[in-house]
């Protein structure tokens, strides 16, 4: 197996899915964001976004906190340290695969 093929095989499947890649990339540059922001930026529907977030939480890559802003319920999302590490490694592997 050549280096490029090895890099492709090493890609994290949880992050590699396009919608989840979009979510993780958006969260990687910030401390946290709410559900509405991700809904607006990704243009996914609520159900699809929720299921991708649940998958990321299950993998230990995202942390989901239910809270209130004033009297309005708010869902805050952030990447865990493991999620950040996995995303950085994914980017490295992707660059290696595309060389």
């Amino acid at each position, binding site marked *: 197996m050549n280096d490029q093929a090895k890099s492709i095989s090493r890609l994290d499947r949880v992050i590699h899915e396009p919608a989840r890649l979009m979510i993780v990339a*958006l969260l990687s540059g*910030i401390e946290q*964001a709410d559900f*509405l922001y991700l809904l607006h*930026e990704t243009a996914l529907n609520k159900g699809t976004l929720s299921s991708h977030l649940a998958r990321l939480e299950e993998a230990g890559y995202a942390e989901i906190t239910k809270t209130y802003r004033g009297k*309005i319920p*708010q869902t805050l999302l952030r990447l865990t340290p493991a999620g950040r590490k996995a995303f950085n490694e994914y980017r490295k592997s992707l660059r290696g695969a595309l060389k």
Partner: protein
Amino acid sequence: MHNQPDEYVWRPMRYQNIDGIWEIGIGFMWLAFPLLEGSLRNTPRNSLWHWHWRGAFLSIALVGFVVMFGVRALKNRITYPRTGFVKYRGLAGKAWLTGLIACAISVSVAILVAHLWHHLRFSAWVALYSAGWGLLYALLTRMEGGWRWVLLAAMVVGPVAISTLPLDGYWLEDLPVAWIGLTYFVSGVIALCLYLRRTQPAEEGAAE
């Protein structure tokens, strides 16, 4: 769907001024300083508010406070209910590093200004100043929308034109600054109106 992860990594940074509120804040700041200076120059010399270092310091603190809390209040009322809330990371949460970088930049600019002070004419200073704010405007807004080019031209050319007018000291120094503030403010208001037109407050439960 875009394939480039880097494009999405930088998106939240551009989101900061999606509504033009930062432009309104900067515009308000540069409009408020010349107006405050003009009114505080006429206060008694021994007054706390007289425009010398004390008055200037108090004005900077007051305007800074209004801009900081004003921007936050507008974001809370307008932006977050429409397109969502984002909390930024800062420089990896290291406030001291941010302070150190800000100090280094301020000292470098002060040294550069002191070095060039006697070598440049007043109109050249005004041109340099307006070009700097024009550059910041282009970076902040990424010139999205043709109308921004008109405001950028007004921002860069206006102060230089004002500096050639036969005005006395105060007006000559402060009108170019107020002009830049006005262009930022107008641009922010236009951007905010466009944002309000293309977005709606989220329906109940959308943020859950």
